[in-house]
């Protein structure tokens, strides 16, 4: 209990009240400041952090309830005690409903105030301890920014830590939103190259020629538009890590170029004749089934072997449901910090729905759903309806993959319709990339005039 660090703001329009009460509390060792009216109190709540606000209810101008309201918004962690005269006790009760910690009827016994302060400070200490405990747990169950309690993921973290120490190429596989990029960054951060650059290239985003010059750079005049010499991502990653994202999407020609660069550890800029040597650790990732692509001969087998030195397969979220409550907690914490709104968690029914859903967009989708929920929610607790997920009709875990697919089909269609078939936006909401979304549209044969819930037998 570090009282000096416990900051108290006494708000009262009467000078002698402020001074005497501040003096009394200072004798207890608290660090106490005063504000003479509601508006300067609000200013100080905006500017500084407080553990306790002792606020007089009746003040000219901005009164105690308004200060309370602002404090709840600006500093939900601060406890507000309302001081009131006997005649205004009803309003004081209202203050409790608005989130005040407690109220004191003037004049109150010194003992009352002492006990209230002791209790409050103990509670705040406990809360702080809880937060620390939570943090420690996260560290225990996490690898940098990745969190997971599932044994499969724990084993992956162990593997990633070891792999990070080596120079070997790593291939990360997994569905969209399972954390491939976050894992790549974590491996880099844990590796001896952490002080070097982490350079990410999304291979799906560019045309063949653009990607080629993006990767290898080009000489001045190599093609129309190449006015200056440009370094490629390979060169930029020198001394660090090159992350080749969505490697499954590159053309046959680039597959060959890449293979050469990896085999020989050198390459040529587009239009260049001098070989360039680069020392970069390669991490590649894709949400495609690369092995199948090899069988179907759309992906070079030799390149696959080159990349697949150490491979890490991130399981989809639906295969590690124990992570859902844990991640919900984590994202709610994040959202609370990011949003000016009070977010405290999800209702029990909402959690059931989250557990039942099959998460085609995995962890990214979970985060998006929670973010949407936090925005839409009317109170601090996110309810089922706020999530915008398809209801978990009848059974939570449909064991027939048909109903699973049907659920996915409907959900995707709903989102598409909601966003007027804006593919980029819909993909974002679904937590999948645009290519994946296009594929799903093709797979389910969705069209803009489809109703949300047809295809029921």
């Amino acid at each position, binding site marked *: 209990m570090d009282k000096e660090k416990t900051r108290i703001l006494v708000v009262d329009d009467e000078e002698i009240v402020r001074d*005497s009460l501040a003096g009394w509390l200072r004798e207890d060792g608290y660090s106490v400041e005063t504000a003479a009216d509601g508006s300067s109190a609000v200013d100080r709540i905006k500017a500084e952090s407080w553990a306790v606000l002792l606020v007089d209810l009746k003040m000219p101008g901005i009164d105690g309830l308004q200060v309370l309201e602002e404090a709840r918004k600006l500093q939900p962690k601060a406890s507000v005690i309302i001081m009131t005269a006997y005649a205004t006790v009803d309003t004081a009760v209202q203050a409790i409903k608005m989130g005040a910690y407690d109220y004191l009827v003037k004049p109150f016994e010194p003992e009352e*105030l002492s006990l209230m302060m002791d209790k409050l400070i103990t509670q705040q200490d406990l809360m702080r301890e809880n937060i620390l405990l939570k943090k420690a747990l996260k560290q225990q169950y996490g690898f940098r920014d990745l969190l997971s309690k599932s044994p499969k993921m724990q084993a992956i973290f162990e593997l990633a830590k070891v792999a990070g120490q080596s120079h070997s190429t790593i291939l990360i596989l997994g569905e969209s939103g399972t954390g491939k990029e976050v894992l790549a960054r974590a491996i880099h951060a844990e590796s001896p190259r952490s002080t070097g650059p982490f350079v990410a290239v999304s291979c799906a985003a560019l045309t063949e020629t653009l990607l080629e010059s993006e990767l290898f750079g080009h000489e001045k005049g190599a093609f129309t538009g190449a006015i200056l010499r440009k370094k490629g991502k390979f060169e930029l990653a020198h001394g660090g890590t090159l992350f080749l994202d969505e490697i499954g999407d590159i053309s046959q020609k680039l597959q060959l170029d890449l293979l050469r660069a990896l085999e020989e550890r050198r390459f040529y800029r587009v239009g260049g004749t001098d070989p360039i040597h680069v020392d970069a650790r390669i991490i590649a990732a894709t949400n495609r089934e690369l092995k199948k692509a090899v069988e179907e001969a759309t992906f070079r087998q030799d390149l696959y072997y080159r990349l697949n030195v150490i491979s890490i397969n991130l399981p989809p979220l639906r295969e590690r449901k124990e992570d859902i409550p844990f991640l919900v907690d984590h994202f709610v914490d994040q959202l609370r910090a990011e949003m000016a709104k009070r977010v405290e968690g999800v209702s029990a029914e909402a959690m059931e729905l989250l557990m039942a859903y099959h998460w085609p967009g995995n962890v990214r989708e979970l985060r998006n759903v929670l973010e949407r929920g936090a925005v839409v929610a009317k109170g601090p607790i996110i309810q089922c309806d706020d999530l915008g997920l398809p209801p978990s009709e009848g059974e939570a875990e449909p064991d027939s993959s048909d109903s699973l697919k049907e659920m996915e089909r409907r959900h995707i269609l709903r989102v598409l319709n909601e966003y007027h078939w804006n593919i980029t936006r819909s993909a974002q909401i679904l937590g999948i990339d645009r290519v994946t979304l296009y594929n799903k549209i093709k797979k389910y044969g969705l069209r803009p005039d489809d109703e949300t819930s047809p295809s029921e037998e």
Partner: protein
Amino acid sequence: MADFMSYIYLMWIGNEKVEEGVLQEVKDNVGGIFGVPARIKKVEERPSDAFDPTRGQYSSTKILRWVLRDVPKDAKRVMAITDCDLYIPVLTFVFGEAQLGGKGAIVSTARLRLDLNGFPCPSRLCRARLLKECVHELGHTFGLSHCPSFRCVMSRSNSVLDVDAKSGNLCRDCQSLLIELQKKE
């Protein structure tokens, strides 16, 4: 300012006459505990605006301000003692008030003379309580805040029971802190 020239001034500003020998006892006690010689100063005036007729009590903050208007040049601290029942606006009463790390303090005998039912207590007990509260409030003026050890004279007392439960001395922590604080003065 030479240190030997500095005193803790004690003054009685009660409505009744001060009980025989009490000030002398306080003087010897605080002089010993704080290592600063104390003096008794006779004051004839009384603060005029401190009484609140609706509460029937005296504002300790106002009395303290009145005491500090006029302080002897060689006063290291000023300790006023009164028989008036003291309050600060939001609280039902206070035993005393002090400026934390400041110059002045005040203690009231009004509630120290009574038990929890409002009956008078034996004079010896009352005097012991007064000694404790004087040390306590002076301790505040030297910069000590409340001590979690309930035997220590610097622990907070919200009732005479609390006062009776604590000793009249500083605990070891408060004692060493006092020495540090006095060095800095």
